[in-house]
């Protein structure tokens, strides 16, 4: 039985460390290879020993696909390819390919230089790893090998984010990665055609949220920032270096310009400048507005936003600072947060999702006293605001995407179990498809019934077409031919051609059947009755009474004889060739029911 097997190594009922193994028609594909923000030990990377205990992974995986450059989707890549060992192709879109190494390098620096971790991947490893990458453009179909092909669709979310369709023969899986169904200031909305995959693996971060109109959100955000700045307070916005950061920058930049505000806006890390460069380059991946206006002015050339220096944090007066990372779990954003937390004039705006265990999650859930390293207790007096700016699809968006793609099965990853449960129930209820939500390491097996393409010879097809009117979708039609299976492909040809090709002689196969009829009359009369009966029922067929006392229906022969023992019973001999099997068996069953009583 052909089947598709899916095993999440990460992101199963969890957010972070996305890594999903898919086996489809004998091909193994790994989708994403991320790290987990909430852990600092071995748990931060997926457990690749699940694939194999020893030896390199190349033999077990046909390809690796990275959906976008966020670290929870690509953070474990150098570890996986260089330290564990994988030499096969890694597929990603060009913007991801450009930006991914910057983020990996930054991640490495924080881990090794700041935290002093040993046994971490090196810069060289990142470079080596990136050499294995193959770029995939939007809507480009890439043949990984003879059978396996992948195709990328636009996903919104961040620059270069893509959804991937993985297809082997007629079986296919769509992996969404992270996506956004509502367009924003710099990216468009995710879109997929009605590809009807066997399985859709979708993220479900906001499985239980239906979001407000984005315009309200934007206005709220600007208002909050504006008010704090007017009060003389400082605003901290922890963001991931890339993605939402650019979105919010565009938003603040245009607002500052319009309102003619003077308070400085800083952006914390140098890496953003590098990445911004790529944003300016990959204009085709942005939304309509930026694509249309970049000739006059590239929206990513900010006028009001300057680079941040650590010393600026102590400057008096209002300012707005974007700092990484986005969940306040480490780095500069956490440092600034500690500095500013004590003043109630200040504000921290969390623009996105926070994984459990991070400082961000704690303050959002209302904790006002935080235990920091070294048993310090930090009292949070500053205002804490949450505003869902993360570019994930909300529940309605997820449903919309499922509606667009029309999959046979849905599998949820990248979300919290409790929320997934709710969405699962909704999906099953509204689309009447099966929905799965495996935990990490749990395997879901889906039976598939792949269709097998059969080639039909043109002569046969034309002959069939000539016989009747147009094929009608509602009525099945019988077509006779010979199926030849040769070199793992199938052909349907006419029987004559098959005989010729295979060099066989033709054999006639004839079925005969005796039907006993209780009829005391003479044979001729019985035959006449049979004839008139059949004539009345089979109006579409040619029924003939031959002079030799037999009846033919098309090529089926019916003869009557008296029973040797019982003269009151007549025996009808029905004989038909194999080709007329359908009509023949129908006729016998008809005759077996007996003749209608003569009116006399």
């Amino acid at each position, binding site marked *: 039985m052909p089947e598709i097997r899916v095993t999440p190594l990460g992101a199963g009922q969890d957010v972070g460390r996305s890594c999903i193994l898919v086996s489809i028609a004998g091909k193994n594909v790994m989708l994403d290879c991320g790290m987990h923000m909430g852990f600092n030990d071995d748990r931060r990377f997926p457990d690749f020993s699940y694939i194999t205990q020893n030896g390199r992974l190349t033999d077990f995986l046909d390809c690796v696909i990275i959906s976008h450059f966020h670290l929870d989707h690509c953070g474990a890549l150098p570890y996986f390819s260089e330290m564990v060992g994988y030499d096969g192709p890694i597929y990603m879109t060009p913007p991801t390919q450009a930006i991914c190494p910057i983020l990996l390098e930054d991640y490495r620096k924080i881990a090794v230089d700041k935290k002093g971790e040993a046994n971490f991947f090196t810069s060289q490893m990142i470079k080596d790893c990136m050499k294995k990458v193959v770029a995939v453009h939007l809507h480009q179909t890439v043949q990984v090998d003879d059978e396996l092909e992948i195709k990328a669709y636009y996903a919104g979310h961040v620059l270069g984010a893509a959804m991937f369709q993985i297809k082997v023969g007629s079986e296919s899986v769509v992996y969404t990665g992270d996506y956004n169904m509502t*367009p924003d200031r710099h990216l468009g909305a995710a879109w997929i055609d009605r590809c009807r995959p066997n399985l859709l693996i979708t993220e479900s971060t906001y499985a239980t949220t239906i979001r407000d109109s984005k315009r309200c959100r934007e*206005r709220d955000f600007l208002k909050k920032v504006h008010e704090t700045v007017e009060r003389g307070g400082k605003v901290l916005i922890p963001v991931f270096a890339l993605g939402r950061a650019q979105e919010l920058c565009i938003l603040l930049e245009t607002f500052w310009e319009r309102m003619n505000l003077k308070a400085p806006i800083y952006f914390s890390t140098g890496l953003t400048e590098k990445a911004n460069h790529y944003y300016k380059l990959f204009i085709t991946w942005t939304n309509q*507005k930026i694509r249309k206006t970049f000739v006059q002015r590239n929206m990513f050339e900010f006028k009001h936003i300057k680079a941040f220096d650590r010393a600026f944090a102590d400057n008096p007066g209002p300012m707005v600072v974007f700092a990484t990372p986005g969940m306040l779990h480490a780095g500069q954003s956490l440092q600034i947060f500690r500095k500013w937390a004590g003043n109630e004039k200040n504000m921290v705006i969390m623009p996105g999702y926070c994984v459990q265990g991070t400082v961000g999650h704690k303050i959002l859930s209302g904790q006002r006293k935080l235990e920091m390293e070294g048993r310090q207790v930090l009292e949070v007096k500053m205002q804490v605001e949450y505003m869902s700016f993360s570019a994930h699809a909300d529940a309605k968006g997820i449903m919309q995407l499922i509606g667009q793609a029309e999959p046979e099965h849905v599998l949820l990853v990248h979300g919290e179990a409790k929320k997934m449960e709710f969405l699962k129930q909704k999906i099953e209820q509204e689309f009447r498809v099966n929905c799965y939500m495996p935990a990490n390491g749990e395997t879901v097996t889906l039976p598939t019934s792949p269709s097998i393409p059969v080639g039909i010879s043109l002569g046969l097809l034309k002959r069939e077409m000539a016989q009747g009117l147009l094929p009608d979708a509602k009525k099945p039609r019988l077509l006779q031919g010979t199926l030849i299976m040769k070199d793992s492909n199938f052909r349907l040809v006419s029987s004559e051609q098959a005989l010729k090709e295979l060099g066989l002689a033709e054999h006639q196969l004839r079925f005969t059947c005796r039907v006993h009829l209780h009829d005391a009359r003479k044979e001729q009369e019985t035959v006449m009755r049979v004839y008139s009966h059949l004539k009345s029922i089979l109006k579409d067929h040619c029924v003939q009474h031959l002079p030799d006392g037999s009846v033919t229906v098309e090529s089926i022969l019916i003869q009557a004889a008296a029973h040797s023992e019982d003269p009151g019973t007549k025996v009808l001999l029905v004989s038909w060739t194999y080709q007329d099997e359908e009509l023949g068996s129908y006729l016998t069953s008809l005759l077996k029911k007996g003749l209608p009583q003569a009116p006399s």
Partner: protein
Amino acid sequence: MTPLTSCRMKHLTDTSHGVRNKCLQLLGNLGSLEKSGTKDTEGLATRDVQKIIGDYFSDQDPRVRTAAIKAMLQLHERGLKLQQTIYNQACKLLSDDYEQVRSAAVQLIWVVSQLYPESIVPIPSSNEEIRLVDDAFGKICHMVSDGSWVVRVQAAKLLGSMEQVSSHFLEQTLDKKLMSDLRRKRTAHERAKELYSSGEFSSGRKWGDDAPKEEIDTGAVNLIESGACGAFVHGLEDEMYEVRIAAVEALCMLAQSSPSFAEKCLDFLVDMFNDEIEEVRLQSIHTMRKISNNITLREDQLDTVLAVLEDSSRDIREALHELLCCTNVSTKEGIHLALVELLKNLTKYPTDRDSIWKCLKFLGSRHPTLVLPLVPELLSTHPFFDTAEPDMDDPAYIAVLVLIFNAAKTCPTMPALFSDHTFRHYAYLRDSLSHLVPALRLPGRKLVSSAVSPNIMPHEDPSQQFLQQSLERVYSLQHLDPQGTQELLEFTIRDLQRLGELQSELAGVADFSATYLQCQLLLIKALQEKLWNVAAPLYLKQSDLASAAAKQIMEETYKMEFMYSGVENKQVVIIHHMRLQAKALQLIVTARTTRGVDPLFGMCEKFLQEVDFFQRCFIADLPHLQDSFVDKLLDLMPRLMTSKPAEVVKILQTMLRQSTFLHLPLPEQIHKASATIIEPAGESDNPLRFTSGLVVALDVDATLEHVQDPQSTVKIQVLYPDGQAQMIHPKPADFRNPGPGRHRLITQVYLSHTAWTEPCQVEVRLLLAYNSNARIPKSPWIEGGEVSPQVETSIEGTIPFSKPVKVYIMPKPARR
């Protein structure tokens, strides 16, 4: 018909999609509801066309499916009533794989919903039933979140015209049922409203009231509502601006028909003012203006609206000024805010001056009671101290005064708050900016101008009557002595011109009639010249007057024909008749003053051709022209054709004298085209310097009134001091249409010249181009073949219709 039909039937089953496609198109264009010939051998004929087309809704080829739906729409357009059964078929097509099929299906559903709005359809999977129009509305709303933007645009557009939909379905479109972690959340709009109504809005501390409220039943949450939920929320934040514009338009149309919906969609429209694409912003501002009668802006909404005043696009700002003209503001803070923002706008973009003043005029007259408490602050008066007198030429100060004076018109207590200099400024502004400053009843002063004061405003009837009477008087006095007729005409023309100045609504009619009378007067005068009594060769000089009169009449008739909108055919006849007379006059004068017969031959022939042409064009109107010049002329036509030129001239001369004065019927609605050049103002003493041989761009801003099709008719003329004239055709995109009958031309004119020694003035004016072919009604037999008379009579020309503006320029010699 029958063989055609059967032929089509045969080809409908063709294997090629192209053939089926075309067959369906044919069916759509030719098919009729009647059963086509029952004796048809095909056996298909008993089914009617709709059934046949309907069968192809499930064709295997998407192009054929589209063609089938299009054919159905075509049937509808041809006036056949579609059957209701099509609705269900069309609904199935909404989930088709191909966008063109879905797009066409949406249209079909819309058509059916307009045909059978009140039919009841069952809701699948429940035993409830709803009206068909509601069901269709829900389905089309669902298509607003379709995968293809073509379909989305289509759906959003059609939503606007579904006015019969029930109000609760309509209101659902703005509601997206928010949910946060399974708890209901109120939308930010709802929160804003609550904060506002509880008076906590200004504190700004409780913004983050995002906290989810009641726990909702997980079973009850339906994530994809089949209904209309949030259709506009989706449409307005769509990725493609085409969809957003369509959604805004639809909102506008629905809001115009439902005041309660207008109130609800306000928040969304205001949000659209911050859209990233200018066209969308502009569209939403226009929309808001259209529905502004139904709404009152809250302060927070006003805030957002006013923020757009800083937009760098002139179109947006002016659209917003127009919007503010007709907006209702609820509080005095709102008025103050609006004023402050407008003044800020004024300093940032001084060119907006006129637009802002006009805006404040309406703002003031709409909200007198709200302005009243602000007056002391605005005029910065102090109870004890005299404050410094503000600068009278400051546009910002004038703006404030415009607001206050217009509010004071209906608020008699206000002038008591004015200080002395305010009164003086009032008198000044009343004179200099009379269109912005109304007449006020000021304590201790007499009314400034009683005639124009609103209370003593003469009613429309007397002046209308006056107009009628004076015209009748003229028409009745046909056979008076020439002297008396001339005087009467002169007086009437003067009266009419004055009336036109006083009564703007009668200006068109009065001017039109006056021009006509003027022509008549000129004709009479010309015919009374002594010249006619004397032998020809002696009076070369005298003929100047007559030929000048002929020329002027021609010019005036072109003005009458092309400068007025609303001129009907019966007036055109009279105008052409007058022109014919002028031509006759010209011919006579030429005959008198030239020697030799040769040139006359040509002229006579041409004149006769024109008479002929006149007859052909206006054959239907000839009975109305009893006793007129042309009537008599046509009687004598056979004779004229054969006579010598000298004889023709003689006949014409007697006929001109004998012809009666034709009564000009007054058209219902007539307006004179006019144009005012706002910019350049022509006041500058600083010449515009540029290097000779290069170009300088001159910004031209003009308002045009009652000009039909300005894109093709309005031209700009630049006259250089050396007599060189330059004609400029503005681009069609330079014309904006702010209101019915009004246009605005904002364009740039490129000037260039060789070097001058002194700065000098060039004249800029607007011209109205005309083409006499365009107006003349074509009789069917003129179109066939005979081209020559048409070519001759197609006269193209231009009429200046604005005051010329002088621009001081100085081309400098290029430096070497």
